[in-house]
């Protein structure tokens, strides 16, 4: 394979459109006769619906219909299908498209208004009379596990829906024999996702064909189609689902949502296209968040500080429903033991229902939580044994010569976890060198002279990427010589159109400008799964490689015949198949494509299938493990508690880089997300389950003025588990970032400060710790 584009920082193909306002996001779609939907949502966290009266609303200007689940009952007023069934969940715990009986969180949709404009639909919401009987609320998962706690769902006899367990080795023996044992409790808050584009759906019935078309801002358009087809008792082929340009996903847009179903049902009921665009307040109320985890852990180490074992328990807040099964807590559990070679571990997670918006993965999906507690445990050991933090890590890491390394842990599907390749200690050394760890003492002294506390932080992680079973791709050369790549893998800004085109262009020897990528439209490519779990480069990327190689082989076969040359003497270059060393002897790919697209009565070469095209499905049955280390420095103003990140360096290995510029962008964005989790993002609820932070004025996202420049260094250890040697890069920036920042804050506060076991950390909290330390 030539490497003209693979590995090069080529500018993105999607950019000219997006930079000129020519993107097509869901809200940009306008259809004739389209009505606008607005949802009436529960204002209480737990209640029983006694009555919904829409009489007054129906007579308001522009209003065409008001639907409750009873009105849409012809389609079956059932709970939605479970997206990821789990053997521990005996019955699915999902909500209905509209609640008809009990509501279990503030924001659960109860009724919808269809009107000529969104404003008129919203006006009418206020005129719907809603009578709800309040039921007892559980708004904290710790409270939810207590005996006698109120039930998040009145029909359940326990809020604990499952207990997940992950273990390996004889943990009790390891703890009994260890030189030291330390215990800590951790409180992790991860906040929400907040893609800048909120969610949106347009549904349009096609009266002539009977088809239903859906445009949705989804990471999983094919899952939407599958579940909607099941719900409606239709064939998947009768539903077309497209994810157009999507303004960020980060996890929550991977869910199939009640609004997607409700809008589809409403469009079928009224016969008009229906559009719903979530506003930011609805996003705060009704888009899944990644909620709180509470860990009680013990760590065992030897006299040299080498981590030997971890055991303990977690209480995981799953919110009011489990639409995505147990994916989030299971991912947190599967992320142990991280980069550490542990002789044993034994962990359990109680998955608890509360009357808060359901939870689902957000960038990193539980892995940041696991990384946070593991990295804090490494820091605990260093602090208690008075060792450098990097020494504890270096001594505890899985070593390069142990690869492939079987951790003893299990994947979500129960298969054993085996790290494929890499050198974890090398990433740590690289990051320490690049941030100039040796010069830190001097910088700290300089800061102290200015009255500031400087702290140095460190964190490492391993990330399972490229989750199976597949994303497929087709590659087709058109008779005009253009290359069209189609795939089910949706993009929410990751630049797939460019990276996939790079792979195809190299395999076919064409200019990148000749390649078009069409993704996430069920009419264009038949199957797709989800853009989650840093999986698309590995799965779709490998599939493009496989398909493009097949096309290449086909082209060579025809050209060999036409040029009367041996297949081994041919190469693809410049849009032609040509004889190596004799570029004048060539045949254009467009000519081959034209021959293979056929003319009436003219035979095509015997033994060759029509069309210069092929489809590839890379079966991703083994994961590719990315890893890395991050280091940062924070400067704290002891008077105000203001914490500025002054330096941030990342060492990361995601195998072969398809486009280093895009990978850097993924990592930077990911780190900033993690910094937000460490310092700013806090979704607060009161005891009654009422959200207290439902605007960007009180829920803080990281802004340009607070964020540091981030320096990135790559190690490229190809994954042996896929044909392009890639590992995923979407989440490796986020996973250790909060742990890294907190480690630096701890360091700034000094060795006698309280041990920091939570995030986000506010300035007030920092001042409080400083006061406690000075006492």
């Amino acid at each position, binding site marked *: 394979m030539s490497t003209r584009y693979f590995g090069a920082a080529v500018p*993105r193909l999607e950019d*000219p459109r997006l*930079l*000129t306002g020519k*993107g097509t996001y869901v809200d940009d779609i306008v259809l004739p006769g389209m009505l606008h939907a607005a949802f009436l949502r529960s204002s209480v966290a737990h209640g029983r619906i006694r009555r919904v009266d829409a009489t007054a609303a129906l007579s308001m200007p522009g209003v065409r219909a008001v639907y409750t689940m009873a009105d849409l009952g012809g389609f079956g007023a059932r709970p939605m299908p479970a997206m990821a069934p789990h053997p521990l969940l005996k019955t699915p715990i999902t909500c209905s498209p509209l609640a008809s009986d009990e509501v279990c969180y503030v924001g659960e949709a109860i009724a919808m208004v269809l009107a000529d404009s969104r404003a008129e639909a919203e006006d009418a919401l206020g005129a719907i009379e809603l009578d709800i009987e309040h039921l007892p609320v559980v708004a904290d998962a710790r409270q939810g596990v207590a005996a006698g706690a109120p039930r998040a769902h009145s029909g359940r006899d326990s809020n604990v829906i499952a207990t997940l367990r992950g273990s390996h080795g004889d943990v009790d023996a390891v703890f009994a024999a260890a030189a030291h044992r330390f215990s800590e409790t951790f409180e992790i808050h991860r906040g929400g996702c907040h893609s800048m584009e909120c969610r949106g759906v347009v549904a349009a019935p096609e009266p002539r064909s009977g088809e239903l078309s859906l445009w949705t801002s989804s990471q999983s358009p094919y899952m939407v189609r599958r579940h909607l087809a099941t719900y409606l008792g239709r064939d998947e082929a009768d539903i077309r689902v497209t994810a157009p340009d999507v303004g960020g996903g980060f996890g929550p847009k991977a869910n199939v949502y009640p609004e997607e179903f409700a809008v589809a049902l409403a469009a079928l009921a009224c016969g008009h296209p229906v559009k719903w665009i979530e506003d930011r307040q609805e996003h705060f109320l009704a888009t899944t968040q990644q909620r709180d985890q509470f860990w009680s852990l013990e760590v065992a180490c030897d006299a040299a500080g080498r981590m030997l074992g971890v055991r303990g328990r977690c209480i995981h807040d799953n919110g009011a429903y489990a639409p995505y099964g147990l994916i989030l807590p299971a991912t947190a559990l599967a992320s142990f033991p991280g980069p550490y070679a542990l002789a044993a571990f034994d962990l359990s997670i109680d998955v608890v229902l509360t009357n808060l918006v359901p939870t689902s993965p957000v960038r990193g999906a539980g892995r940041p939580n696991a990384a946070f507690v593991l990295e804090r445990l490494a820091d605990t050991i260093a602090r208690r044994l008075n060792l450098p933090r990097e020494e504890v890590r270096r001594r505890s890491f899985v070593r390069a010569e142990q690869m492939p390394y079987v951790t003893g842990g299990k994947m979500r599907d129960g298969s054993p976890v085996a790290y494929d390749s890499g050198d974890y200690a090398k990433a740590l050394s690289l990051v320490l060198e690049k941030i100039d760890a040796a010069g830190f003492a001097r910088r700290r002294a300089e800061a102290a002279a200015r009255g500031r506390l400087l702290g140095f932080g460190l964190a490492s992680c391993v990330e399972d990427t490229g989750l199976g079973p597949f994303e497929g791709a087709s590659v087709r050369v058109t008779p005009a010589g253009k290359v069209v790549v189609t795939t089910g893998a949706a993009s929410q800004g990751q630049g797939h159109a460019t990276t996939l085109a790079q792979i195809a262009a190299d395999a076919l020897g064409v200019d990148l400008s000749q390649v078009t990528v069409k993704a996430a439209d069920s009419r264009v490519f038949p199957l797709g799964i989800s853009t989650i779990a840093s999986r698309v480069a590995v799965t779709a990327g490998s599939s493009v490689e496989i398909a493009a190689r097949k096309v290449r082989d086909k082209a060579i076969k025809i050209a060999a015949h036409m040029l009367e040359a041996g297949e081994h003497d041919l190469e693809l270059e410049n849009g032609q198949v040509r004889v190596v060393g004799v570029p004048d002897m060539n045949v254009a790919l467009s000519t081959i494509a034209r021959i293979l697209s056929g003319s009436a009565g003219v035979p095509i070469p015997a033994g060759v299938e029509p069309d210069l095209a092929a489809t590839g499905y890379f079966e991703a049955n083994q994961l590719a493990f990315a890893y890395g280390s991050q280091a940062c420095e924070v400067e704290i103003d002891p008077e105000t508690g203001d914490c500025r990140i002054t330096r941030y360096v990342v060492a990361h290995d995601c195998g072969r880089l398809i486009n280093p510029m895009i990978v850097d962008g993924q990592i930077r964005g990911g780190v900033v997300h993690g910094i937000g989790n460490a310092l700013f993002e806090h979704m607060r609820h009161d005891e009654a389950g009422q959200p207290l932070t439902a605007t960007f004025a009180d829920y803080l996202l990281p802004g340009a003025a607070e964020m540091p420049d981030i320096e990135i260094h790559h190690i490229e250890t190809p994954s042996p588990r896929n044909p392009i040697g890639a590992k995923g890069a979407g989440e490796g920036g986020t996973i250790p970032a909060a742990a890294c920042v907190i480690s630096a804050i701890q360091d700034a506060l000094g060795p006698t400060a309280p041990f920091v076991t939570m995030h986000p950390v506010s300035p007030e909290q920092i001042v409080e710790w400083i006061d406690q330390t000075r006492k």
Partner: protein
Amino acid sequence: MSARKINLTVNGRAVEAEVEARVNLADFLRQTLALTGTHLGCEHGVCGACTVIVDGRPARACLMLAVQADGAKVETVESLGTPEALSELQLAFRDRHALQCGFCTPGMLMTIEALLRVEAAPTREQIRDVLSGNLCRCTGYQAIVDAALDAAEARRGTR
């Protein structure tokens, strides 16, 4: 709802329209004029996605009513360049990978465009400060700052 007649210039074109008093400028641009490059990320003035230039100054189109733009000169992202002929600023965004999903991008571009008209040689800190009113969840901002610096240099002809 009472409709009012307004006259304004949008991207150099004279526009006369009837709008309801409650319609904000962003909805007017997107829905009435089909200029969908202006995006709405929060509708309460914090995210900056809806930023356009009104009479030379950056403004949040979600916080301004269309009727308030009567007589004004409004510039949106559609005025900057075309896919075939990107402006210097847009080119810098592409070359620096200053956009990922592209949703915040029009607002970012208009904020920086307005800055570069009054400040030919902004510093990194100045750019970060000006961008503090525009949220981006994808890029982590650094590449946007790089792009703004590059564009300023390109405009000064020092590149």
